[in-house]
């Protein structure tokens, strides 16, 4: 897991508003399995984070269309959903914004930046107070 991801999650712990965070651990590399996902939760200690393990890449692929990923599996992506967004059918809803670390597979301006990700989340917090 990259340090930038840990930094993002650490910074989320400091956000003062009501924010739900889900980490979905997927099998991308050979060493990715459920015990590895359990270990990874130790590195994301924020109480805000709910952790899930999915045993196949098929679930990640259902997100491809939401973010415009033409092929492969959506992973190392960070989707932001504003209040009110509902997940109705089999396909996840399109996020209000997102960031990624998938290189040139997705727009470069969406490359993960912890500061920008916080900004995506913080203005809403002001509205919610």
């Amino acid at each position, binding site marked *: 897991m990259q340090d930038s991801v840990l930094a993002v999650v650490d910074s989320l712990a400091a956000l003062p*508003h009501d924010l739900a965070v889900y980490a*979905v*651990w997927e099998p991308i590399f050979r060493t990715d399995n459920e015990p590895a996902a359990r270990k990874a939760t130790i590195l994301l200690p924020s109480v805000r984070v709910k952790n899930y393990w*999915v045993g196949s890449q098929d679930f990640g692929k259902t997100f491809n269309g939401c973010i415009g990923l033409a092929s492969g599996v*959506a992973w190392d992506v960070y989707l932001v959903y504003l209040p*009110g967004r509902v*997940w109705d059918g089999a396909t*996840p809803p399109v996020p209000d914004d997102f960031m990624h670390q998938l290189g040139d597979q997705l727009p470069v301006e969406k490359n993960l930046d912890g500061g920008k990700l916080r900004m995506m989340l913080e203005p809403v917090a002001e509205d919610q107070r």
Partner: protein
Amino acid sequence: MKAIRWLLMGVLALAGCAKNPSPIGEWKGMAALPDQDSVTAIVDITKVGTRWAGQFDLPYHGLEDYPLEISVTGSQVHLYFAGPEAEFQGALSRDGRALSGTATLSDGMKVPLTFRRVGDAQLSEMFWKLERAADDSSLVVRLSPDGAELRAQFNADRDKTRLLMLLSPT
């Protein structure tokens, strides 16, 4: 009667010698790669319950405490190095002091490699914390193929801003 007892003790001692040596410990190996400096790998192997576990360092590449996938069958030891995606297949010597075999690099190149035992496994407190977590099924919710559990939570939190991260655990 005394002679039989001595004979039995001798047989048991021989059986003990024939037992496979254990790979548990710290190992150091140096691989000579074509057109590169030789690369040193430090491998720490232990057992957690019934499963093998360990870590490796590749100081030349700045890698420290990376996860190691280990399988052991008799004297045969297979290692998979996460990160560089390299493998090692080798055999323990009869005295348990050497582990000799072949490393296969991510590009398919094969190089001979011998690890020498240098002492007890040096595993950090964090390693043991992570290994305990690996056995704790309460830490993650196992999703159905359609993600129903996540969808239900997502909709239950509809009044909140939500951050959904799709990640690889390693």
